[in-house]
């Protein structure tokens, strides 16, 4: 694996454009746009203050830079470098900012989640959405900012679902993105709505409760409740939720270390995956790092064909050997008496071809799981490790190769 030279970066702000041609990165108050292939600087923009968040528009023509401390959003255009746009929230403050799927509207969340302001770049009009809910995203986003999971756009960008809370009750509003009209508004039967997510086909909305109660609610596009699912009571509940790319399955990861998969026909659980501390099944292939460095073990991948367990590397040269079953995974016992303990299935990722599900359980230092589009390789990113798992599709045997990556 080759690495390019090191570029300066601040606040971990570095994003590829959706069309893959450019790479935007921030250094203090400057925004640097590079060509993705040659890494030559294409554009350089200067903002007024330190940038906290950048985001590409969906058509890769605009970049927004959010300056939370100043309450400003600055938008830059790639086509016309001299074009500029500045949105000032004033005393309302700014907590989060994101694009709409059509790339022409910016949604700003003001401080204390007072409201969401929708600014239009086409018409210079403003819309306000009151009472948005302040849902927190899971641990995956800890490295980056905490962005709201109370907003969810459908994949085709037509509809926006917004979680709200009024009078101690949770509601979901569905807006039409083209003209920001309110389509549906209904309440959810949750104690404290923790997150919402659209299915990839845009017809079903999954809403789940906070970790104090295990509850998943499924609503259709027009606001009807299709089904609810509750696995157990009283213990800490749902930690993460993921849809499969074909919308056939909904994977729910919970604090008891298990992933439950619901099917889209009956919305009942079809299977349940555990994360046992010892792997006994002889069908599972376990890859273990040969070098004995303090292993920050990555979570293992579990599915029907044999899976790979990859250990991170501590040096550029190290190899993986197949460990004999039974293998016991090293787990660190996190502090159980704190809130939001680091147990349970925190990260879920379906492969794009719908075959595999990658899960991270417990306190493993994996910050992100990312599948390749072809569905045959998986990139695992740790705090200072980077691991690439390649899966052979025939038997699903995985080989892993890892390299030490710089802190990017």
């Amino acid at each position: 694996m080759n690495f390019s030279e090191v570029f300066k970066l601040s606040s971990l702000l570095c994003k590829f454009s959706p069309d893959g041609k450019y790479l935007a990165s921030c250094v203090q108050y400057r925004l640097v746009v590079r060509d993705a292939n040659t890494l030559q600087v294409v554009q350089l923009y200067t903002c007024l203050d330190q940038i906290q968040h950048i985001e590409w528009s969906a058509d890769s023509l605009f970049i927004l830079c959010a300056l939370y401390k100043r309450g400003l959003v600055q938008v830059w255009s790639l086509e016309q470098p001299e074009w500029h746009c500045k949105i000032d929230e004033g005393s309302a403050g700014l907590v989060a900012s994101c694009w709409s799927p059509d790339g022409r509207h910016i949604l700003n969340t003001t401080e204390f989640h007072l409201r969401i302001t929708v600014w239009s770049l086409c018409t210079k009009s403003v819309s306000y959405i009151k009472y948005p809910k302040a849902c927190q995203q899971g641990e995956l986003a800890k490295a980056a900012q905490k962005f709201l999971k109370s907003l969810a756009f459908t994949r085709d960008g037509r509809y926006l679902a917004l979680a709200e809370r009024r009078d101690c009750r949770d509601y979901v509003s569905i807006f039409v993105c083209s003209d920001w009209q309110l389509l549906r508004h209904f309440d959810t039967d949750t104690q404290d709505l923790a997150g919402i997510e659209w299915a990839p086909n845009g017809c079903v909305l999954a809403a789940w409760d906070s970790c104090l109660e295990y509850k998943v609610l499924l609503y259709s596009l027009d606001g009807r409740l299709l089904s609810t699912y509750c696995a157990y009571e009283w213990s800490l509940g749902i930690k993460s939720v993921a849809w499969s790319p074909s919308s056939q399955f909904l994977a729910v990861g919970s604090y008891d270390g298990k992933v439950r998969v619901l099917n889209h026909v009956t919305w009942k659980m079809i299977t349940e995956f555990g994360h046992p501390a010892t792997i006994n099944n002889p069908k599972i292939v376990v890859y273990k790092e040969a070098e004995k460095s303090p292993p920050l073990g990555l979570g293992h991948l579990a599915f029907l064909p044999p899976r790979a367990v990859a250990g991170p590397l501590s040096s550029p040269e190290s190899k993986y050997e197949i460990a004999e079953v039974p293998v016991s995974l090293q787990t660190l016992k996190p502090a159980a008496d704190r809130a939001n303990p680091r147990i349970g299935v925190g990260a879920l990722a379906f492969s794009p071809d719908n075959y595999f599900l990658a899960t991270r359980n417990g306190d493993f230092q994996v910050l992100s799981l990312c599948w390749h589009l072809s569905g045959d390789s998986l990139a695992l990113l740790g705090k200072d490790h980077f691991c690439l798992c390649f899966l052979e599709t025939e038997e699903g045997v995985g080989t892993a190769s890892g390299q030490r990556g710089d802190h990017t």
Partner: protein
Amino acid sequence: MGDWMTVTDSENKNISQYTSETKMSPSSLYSQQVLCSSIPLSKNVHSFFSAFCTEENIEQSIAYLDQELTTFGFPSLYEESKGKETKRELNIVAVLNCMNELLVLQRKNLLAQENVETQNLKLGSDMDHLQNCYAKLKEQLENSRREMIGLQERDRQLQCKNRNLHQLLKNEKDEVQKLQNIIASRATQYNHDMKRKEREYNKLKERLHQLVMNKKDKKIAMEVLNYVGRADGKRGSWRTGKTEARNEDEMYKILLNDYEYRQKQILMENAELKKVLQQMKKEMISLLSPQKQKPRERADDSTGTVISDVEEDAGELSRESMWDLSCETVREQLTNSIRKQWRILKSHVEKLDNQVSKVHLEGFSDEDMISRQDHEQETEKLELEIQHCKEMIKTQQQLLQQQLATACDDDTTSLLRDCYLLEEKERLKEEWSLFKEQKKNFEKERRSFTEAAIRLGLERKAFEEERASWLKQQFLNMTTFDHQNSENVKLFSAFSGSSDRDNPTAHSRPRQKKPHSVSDGSPVCTSKLARSLPASPSTSDFCQTRSCVSEHSGSVSALNVTPEESRPSQAGRECADQKWSVASRPGSQEGCRSGCSLTYTNSHVEKDDLP
């Protein structure tokens, strides 16, 4: 009992003494007699018998006996008295009869006594036995009683434990319930508190919101250089009721599309599954229908149902194919028919199983059917064989590899390497020695050949000289007939005579001269051989003959050599070649001027050898 001897002293007195002192009645005496009857007659008895009746007291003893016998029911010993006379006559017949009776009685009594004794013994042993049994049983009873008590005790203890555990379980359950109640109550409490806090928070937010919104003069604004066109290039539209309706329509359209798509998928799946089921049914029917041809004697319900089913199903199939929709009735029919077929198949398979087991029990009644056990045994045997063979192959492979692979130790490898080639080396050595011998032989032969060739050459030279002289003679003769003849003859003779002498010298001289004048060989020859008038053709002839000879010799030697030197030793051949050329050199250097330079080096060596 007293001393029998004292009785004999005086009969009457003794008897009376006896009766008075010892109070022994005659009956007791009698009983004593009976008791001692079992004892074989001994002297004592004899003495006793004699002690009862002596010659003096016959009358008294007879009277006594008579009295006793009459009391026992025997007839009297006396004869019937005719009158009241003092003396009665002893009836001997009666006595004898009485004696006989007594004897018979005695025997009977003895028998009875024996019987009684044996019975007594038996009873005694039975009694003992029973007593033993009784004792044992008593023991057993005791033991079992003790055991029972122990078991009862244990049972009681276990029941106690059980009760305790039940109690514990109940306690735990109660606790769990309590905790759950606590949790529920706490949850409600927290919810309530949360709601309260939230309301407060909302109020704050509202207040803040108002404050924020109020400050209109603040620069909540957007600066943009110029408007950006919409993403899809269309113009924006106003929000009206129509747009709302349109949005609704669109939403429903999307939902409907999704549902339709899903329904299509499900229909496809259904159709496939139905096809599969139908196929299965057909196959099952085909499997079961051959039973029809089988012995129809068995009017089983199964075959009957099969036939009927086949007909039914055929009809159903046609119906199904006709409709081919997800009709309720069709679906039911399909599932029912499949179930029926499956049941039939199951029963069939069970029957087969039974048959197999029966055959196995009864032995091989049917040739075609091999009992399952034998089959399994065979397969096991075969598997074992296969394993053995595989192991053998593995070991052989390992051995082969070991042989071929180099050993880890250097010495051993070198040794091993050497040992493989040892044989070859030996062989090679032998061949070398052979070859060397042959080489030597060949050399010898070559030498001899060269000598022969040289001699031949010399002789030829001599012959040529003779010829030349003869020709000269002839020529001279032609001119001066007489003179020359003698001269020729002389010459000839001189020549011939001296030819032998001169020729070698003549030959040797030019030969010796040869190395010195290699370059112009022919003129030397001619000059040297001028004496013998060698016409140039002759010299050339000579040289040619020389060369021929040498060549011949060479060829001869070559011919000789090649069969000998069949072994591949390139070096040897080369040497031979060199020698050939060397050998030919002195003779026909002119002819073979294109000798290789290598040979020259050896020429010195060869020179010495040549004569």
